[in-house]
């Protein structure tokens, strides 16, 4: 039995995992970098150890140090969360050698699904539909020219070791091919140290549909239905929902079966996600396996009624899955919005600094996975995700309205976020009608600006600010007689930071 887990991560996912552990009676060890000393995951864990300086390689990617803390604290397992070491097969292998349970897939399956070209091969052999394209990385220009003809333009150039859009290029014709392949190889080389690239058919306005799966060590594999994550910006998901508005029951069942087959084919264990692209004619193509707990896992939890993080821990302990495929069903509708420290008016560049004040939304059907608090320093060192806001309701339309209400109630002062952008997205007619695809944001919201001059509460803001200025000026001035306490008297508080 696992009785102590080291959480090799930070932010909201570390908090999420610690909460699951607490409920299971498992002790928790947090690790942190110098800037995260007061982070919420440090506050919540039973023990917390400093890894080093903020740079990820010195802290959250520092395998030696993390293994050392695990040994010292006698943690028998490590949960890597998402990002950082989550899909690092070397780290998984290292844990196996050290006899520490890595809460994730076995290192062999992890290595297999991590190599795009290799996994395309495996899937082809298993007759899993993949995007038509090259069976291997291209050797010379003729290779690319011949293959592009065969696939049919437009084609997509991808890095073999890739991810996150690096080295990716759309090629519309033979004329563009040479320079694109060369540029793509250069980019791939500099991003991954590996210049291998290959071609795939470019699917226009596809939907991104993924299936959550759980696989135990006893050969049981179930899928927990789909999540649609088509709303993306620069290949980054920002809104996810389930059920998908496009899947019919038949297609859902078929794709679920394929997802299970992918997992069985690769010998994958623990929780994972099988990603597909769905084209306009509802043809689906296997994309890749995400070998970790996903950022968007809560929407599955809320509609299926299963805790995925607890399931991960149970599977890692060697337990059998307690539910059969036929007992699982979707109930209601869930939407997740990712809250980022970004400035949507300034090309979504990161916005960091001190959070002067935060007020998080709450209420029935609202889940807020966050690690925020008033006074938190959002630093430049890590991913700008601040929180995940998830709304569940009986229907999609109600979940959408709940999300709009929840976003309106999410107050973060001091740094910029894309909360207003997300709210406008929720109000977009094409989102309302469920016509989502991966080009949604470039197509409909590329020129989004905060509604300057169209704001409805300018008057109230001016009055509030003026009253604030008035009382700020007069130290000791009392706003009203029955004041329960007087913030004007304690200005120090207002001036957080500096």
């Amino acid at each position, binding site marked *: 039995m696992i009785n102590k887990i080291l959480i090799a991560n930070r932010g909201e996912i570390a908090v999420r995992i610690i909460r699951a552990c607490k409920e299971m009676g498992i002790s928790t060890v947090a690790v942190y970098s110098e800037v995260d000393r007061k982070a919420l995951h440090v506050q919540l864990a039973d023990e917390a150890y400093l890894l080093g300086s903020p740079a990820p390689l010195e802290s959250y990617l520092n395998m030696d140090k993390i293994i050392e803390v695990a040994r010292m604290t006698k943690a028998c397992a490590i949960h890597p969360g998402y990002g950082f070491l989550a899909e690092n097969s070397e780290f998984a292998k290292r844990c196996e050698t050290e006899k520490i349970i890595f809460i994730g897939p076995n290192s062999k399956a992890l290595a297999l699904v991590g190599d795009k070209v290799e996994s395309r091969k495996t899937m082809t052999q298993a007759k899993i539909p993949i995007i038509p394209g090259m069976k291997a990385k291209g050797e010379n220009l003729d290779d690319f020219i011949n293959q592009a003809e065969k696939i049919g333009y437009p084609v997509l150039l991808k890095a073999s070791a890739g991810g996150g859009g690096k080295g990716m290029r759309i090629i519309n014709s033979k004329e563009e091919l040479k320079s694109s392949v060369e540029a793509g190889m250069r980019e791939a080389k500099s991003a991954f140290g590996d210049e291998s690239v290959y071609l795939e058919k470019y699917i226009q306005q596809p939907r991104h549909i993924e299936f959550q799966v759980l696989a135990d060590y006893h050969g049981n594999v179930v899928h927990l239905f789909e999540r649609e994550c088509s709303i993306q910006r620069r290949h980054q998901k920002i809104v996810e929902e389930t059920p998908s508005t496009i899947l019919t029951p038949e297609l859902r069942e078929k794709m679920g079966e394929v997802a299970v087959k992918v997992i069985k084919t690769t010998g994958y264990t623990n929780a994972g996600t099988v990603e597909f692209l769905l084209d306009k004619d509802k043809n689906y193509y296997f994309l890749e396996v995400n070998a970790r707990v996903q950022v968007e896992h809560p929407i599955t939890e809320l509609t299926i009624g299963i805790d995925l993080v607890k399931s991960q821990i149970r599977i890692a302990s060697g337990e059998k899955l307690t539910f059969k495929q036929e007992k699982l069903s979707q109930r209601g509708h869930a939407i997740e919005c990712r809250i980022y*420290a970004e*400035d949507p008016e*300034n090309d979504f*560049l*990161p*916005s*960091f*600094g*001190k959070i*002067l*004040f935060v*007020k998080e939304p709450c209420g029935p059907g609202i889940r807020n996975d966050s690690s925020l608090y008033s006074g938190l320093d959002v630093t*430049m*060192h*890590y*991913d700008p995700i601040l929180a995940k806001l998830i709304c569940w309701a009986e229907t999609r339309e109600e979940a959408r309205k709940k999300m709009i209400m929840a*976003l*309106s*109630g999410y*107050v973060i*002062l*001091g740094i910029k976020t894309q*909360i*207003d952008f997300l*709210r406008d997205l929720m109000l977009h007619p094409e989102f309302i009608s469920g016509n989502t695809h991966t080009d949604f944001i470039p197509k409909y919201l590329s020129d989004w600006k905060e509604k*300057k*001059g169209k*704001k*409805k*509460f*300018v*008057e*109230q*803001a*001016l*009055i*509030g*600010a*003026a*009253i*604030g*200025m*008035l009382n*700020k*000026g007069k130290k000791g001035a009392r*706003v*009203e*007689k029955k*004041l329960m*306490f*007087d*913030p004007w008297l*304690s*200005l120090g*508080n*207002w*001036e*957080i*930071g*500096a």
Partner: protein
Amino acid sequence: MEYELIIDGEIHKVSVEPKDGKYIIDLGKKRIEAFCEIIDPNSFLLVIDEKTYPFYMAFHEKKIHLSVGGEKFVIQEAESKKEKRFEREGVDIEGKKAICAPMPGKILKILVEEGEKVRKNQSLAIVEAMKMEHEIRASIEGFVKKINFKEDDLVDTEEPILELEVKD
């Protein structure tokens, strides 16, 4: 008291006077009576004509960060804007141009030296934040007058990384 407050670049005149536990507010075009209840140091309840508007406010570096009705405002006093040392858009009267980072971050590289001639759009520095790199380019042709930071320094969006000068 009268204030000139800037919201989204527009100046608004507001006068506010406390009276019998209420506030009399003059917005120029109209006069309003309001109550203001304090919930906690950052949370307030504005009551106008029995309508309640909870608002959240924090003062920080001469700015008022305020949220009401789900809308966010960053408000400045008109005077304090004048204090700003550099004009972001265009060249100032002395023919100097301050180059600031588009986002706060760490300076990865400074690509020019003081005195160097630069052409428009030339890369001047690289700033990194949250795993993203961003190139800072020259918005005008000119000479590097002054470099205020060195590599590995942290910068915000207000303090210029370097200053360019137009020479004829």
